[in-house]
């Protein structure tokens, strides 16, 4: 059993008590809300005549369904209009702070939490969205929950939880140029499997993670759930504190100094005990691409796609189906595969550094003929920053569309969708069948720089040959 890890310290500090079932009741310091998965929870709350227990610790945005091409109300999608209106009514009635679409603090829930300084080390954070693990980048225990659990949160600000085991994942060495946090997490999921994290919290560390920016750490933690780990985190350090300092909801003045002392104290002890440790040489990584229909079906861009007989017997069935859906050949290469759509954005890779990397590839180049390229900033603040830096002009001059912030083409809940069997080079997190809004659509996950290079080439390429 783990001892002295951040997970142990933060979890223990939030335990309210044992439940008769043997589970633990845990206080959740920050509850984040978005426009889907929430309506039935508020419905039940209203029916029961109850109030929100901690409205001051509950914050809402609308990101999944909002269109990125126009914010005119009512939205052209009647269902989106209904759900967003309902959310607006609920936040008003229950006194919850709402970052409205179009306002300068609006954005994807997992992007604005950190951006506003709401996300802090040592917290427990929950949201009705699996990518809540993103917030673990700050040294918080952050997890996604279903709608019934959202109801628990609204009414009690607590959850019934089982204690997880802790797996330390060391990424040592130094990443090559053109290799990013996205590639690190895709390799971890490939190595450990989409179910490999079952029952574990992942603690990421090692030289590569120590040197990583907060944005990189967020990408890393974001996809923990794709590896089956409900929770993923990085121990807070000076990089973390520097990121938080001065943000709207961050402690100010001497309170900030006291906060830093507390935040340092929740980091895993040097002698912490882990349930399991995995080591990875970051220097050996190359840009990763997925070839299948789950994020674990990935390979280095110069590598041959696995032949079915190279895979463990238990994985051949899904691999065969994945190849059939993707219309790719086992044993072949992904490089050269023509792409129809390029998507840069999402809670995984819609941050300013992602846009900068993509812009550095697209500057002076043009999106290949016949390719639809979409660049969607993760928040209004990122959109503003990118426009200050002139990144929007680089994208539009290259022939890409520069959109408003939102979840966009990550998940097919708004007008940004694949059509038919289009193949999309995507900086998002899931390549599941139908994920991007078309049942026949095909997704190849990769870093934003790789997506930009694919957009320019019109086919999958190795970004290292495109970097300047």
């Amino acid at each position, binding site marked *: 059993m783990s001892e002295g890890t951040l997970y142990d310290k933060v979890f223990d500090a939030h335990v309210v008590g044992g439940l008769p079932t*043997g589970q633990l009741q845990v206080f959740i310091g920050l509850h984040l809300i978005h426009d889907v998965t929430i309506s039935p929870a508020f419905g039940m709350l209203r029916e029961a005549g109850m109030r929100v227990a901690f409205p001051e610790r509950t914050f809402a945005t609308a990101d999944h369904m909002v269109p990125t091409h126009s914010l005119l109300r009512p939205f052209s999608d009647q269902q989106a209009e209904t759900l967003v209106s309902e959310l607006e009514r609920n936040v008003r009635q229950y006194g919850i702070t709402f970052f409205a679409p179009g306002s300068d603090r609006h954005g994807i829930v997992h992007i604005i939490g950190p951006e506003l300084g709401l996300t802090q080390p040592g917290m427990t954070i929950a949201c*009705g969205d699996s990518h809540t693990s993103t917030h673990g980048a700050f040294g918080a225990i952050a997890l996604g929950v279903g709608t*019934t659990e959202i109801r628990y949160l609204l009414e009690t600000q607590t959850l*019934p939880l089982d204690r997880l085991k802790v797996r330390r994942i060391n990424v040592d060495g130094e990443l090559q140029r053109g290799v990013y946090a996205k590639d690190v997490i895709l390799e971890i999921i490939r190595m450990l499997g*989409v*179910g490999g994290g079952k029952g574990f919290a992942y603690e990421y560390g090692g030289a590569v993670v120590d040197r990583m920016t907060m944005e990189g750490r967020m990408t890393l933690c974001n996809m923990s759930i794709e590896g089956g780990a409900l929770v993923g985190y990085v121990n807070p350090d000076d990089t973390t504190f520097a990121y938080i300092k001065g943000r709207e909801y961050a402690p100010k003045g001497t309170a900030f100094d006291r906060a830093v002392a507390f935040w340092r104290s929740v980091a895993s002890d040097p002698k912490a005990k882990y349930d399991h440790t995995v080591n990875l040489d970051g220097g050996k990584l190359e840009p990763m691409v997925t070839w299948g229909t789950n994020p674990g079906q990935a390979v280095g861009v110069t590598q041959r796609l696995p032949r079915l007989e190279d895979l463990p017997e*238990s994985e051949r069935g899904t691999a065969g189906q994945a190849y059939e859906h993707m219309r790719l050949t086992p044993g072949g290469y992904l490089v050269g595969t023509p792409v129809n759509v390029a998507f840069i954005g999402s809670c995984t890779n819609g941050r300013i550094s992602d846009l900068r990397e993509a812009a550095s590839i697209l500057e002076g180049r043009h999106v290949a003929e016949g390719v639809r390229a979409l660049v969607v900033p993760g928040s209004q603040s990122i959109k503003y920053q990118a426009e200050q830096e002139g990144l929007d002009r680089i994208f539009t001059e290259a022939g890409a569309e520069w959109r408003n912030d939102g979840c966009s083409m990550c998940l097919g809940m708004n007008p940004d969708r694949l059509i038919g069997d289009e193949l999309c080079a995507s900086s998002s997190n899931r390549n*599941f069948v139908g994920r991007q809004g078309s049942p026949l659509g095909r997704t190849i996950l990769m870093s934003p720089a790789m997506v930009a290079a694919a957009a320019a080439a019109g086919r999958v390429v190795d970004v290292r040959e495109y970097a300047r």
Partner: protein
Amino acid sequence: MPIDDLIIVTISGTAIPLGGDDTDTDTITPADAMKEPTFANSAGYLFRDARKANPRHPLNNHAYDGASILIVGRNFGIGSSRETAPQAIQRYGINALVGESFGPIFAGTCKSLGMPAVTSAHDDVALLMQLTERNPGTIYTLDLTTKTLAYDGGAVPIEIPEPTRVALMTGSWNALAMLKANSGRAREVAAGLPYMRGFAE
């Protein structure tokens, strides 16, 4: 609801041999299901795209109509936290799932809905699949007391996290009442957290 109606000890009925590994919740219910304001219509989205694409999908086979147990493979319910997935399965008429393993958020939500998602060894799951494929009328009884799934002529052992088993057998799988009972203590714990006090001295 009276507590007796919430207690889940045994579940009996026929099964659907769904099988398959790494089934994500996008596949179980596509995003369109989440655009509905309630779960009332969730069942209509259950494996919508897969059923359309494949006329031989087990859910299109009337031989399995009326089943109350869903037999699945490894890593069932991975990915998105969408509750439409377990809601759709439950509203379709399924009362329990048996498979090799489940996605973590999906498993938690199944528990909160009072729908056991139990695991069994690879070979045992394969055996159950075969039994039902050969005879769709095969009746199973899941017994949480003995941790077995029995059929005429045999039984396989099943696993379920102990707190989930206790919650189902005591009718306390909807945790709200238990959580609310400790609301005073929850406020005390909250008050002791430095960030809840704005890191005041």
